């Protein structure tokens, strides 16, 4: 039996394709379809300390889309939507869906951000063979 750390598993995930099911915004649409977005894992970030699954982040390159803010978005940063013991990296490695917030705040210039909002999608994603 091989035991790998979250960080090692994360590195194995880089380059894998993913399929994202978008729940919010409710009327999201992309070139991939209504409430669907495809992408690829381009980076992972995991805490070196065990027991901190909420700190795991997965960086995704996605089919470009125009956000509600009018900005063209090409990358999303996924992190866990719920308080839970299992991190999103482990869920992906198990072949399960990861329930996440998908932030694109880094692609919205600071002076153009809505102070009452947090630019992101909400949904879930899993590894895809496509």
């Amino acid at each position, binding site marked *: 039996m091989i035991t790998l750390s979250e960080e090692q598993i994360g590195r194995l995930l880089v380059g894998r394709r993913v399929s994202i*099911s*978008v*729940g*919010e*915004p*409710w*009327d*999201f649409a992309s070139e991939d*379809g*209504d*409430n*669907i977005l495809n992408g690829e894992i381009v980076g992972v970030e995991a805490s070196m300390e065990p027991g901190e699954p*909420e700190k795991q982040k997965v960086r995704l390159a996605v089919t470009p889309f125009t956000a*509600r803010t009018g900005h063209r978005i090409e990358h999303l940063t996924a*992190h*866990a*939507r*719920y*308080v*839970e013991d299992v991190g999103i990296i482990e869920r992906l490695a198990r072949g399960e*869906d990861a*329930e996440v*917030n998908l*932030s694109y*705040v880094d692609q919205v210039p600071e002076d153009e951000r*809505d102070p*009452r*909002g*947090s*630019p*992101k*999608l*909400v*949904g*879930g994603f899993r590894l895809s063979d496509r």
Partner: protein
Amino acid sequence: MTSLREKVFYRYMSLAESEAVEQSGLLRGGRPGRTYWTTDRYESAREAMGRLALENEPEIRLEFRITNEPELAVEGATVAPDEAEPGRGTEYMSEQSVEVEVGRVDYLE
């Protein structure tokens, strides 16, 4: 176990989505993808956004009962903090269509 049909739920949304619900009888107007809702009743748009870590302040609080039996992928999970939002709200989620009987539609400040 309590049936979904026996409980009162809330979803916080835009005016456009509430119109789609009214026309279709389905949350999110029956669009594909994940559908989220909660047992939490918030009095302000800011509180709903913060507790449920929403993208924007919602315009509408929809109170409803579920009239079908969608399979739950998330049942009463606690929303994690996100950026400046404190989270800690309660959330349910299904990937199936959620048929509803609307009880109240309230505009949020």
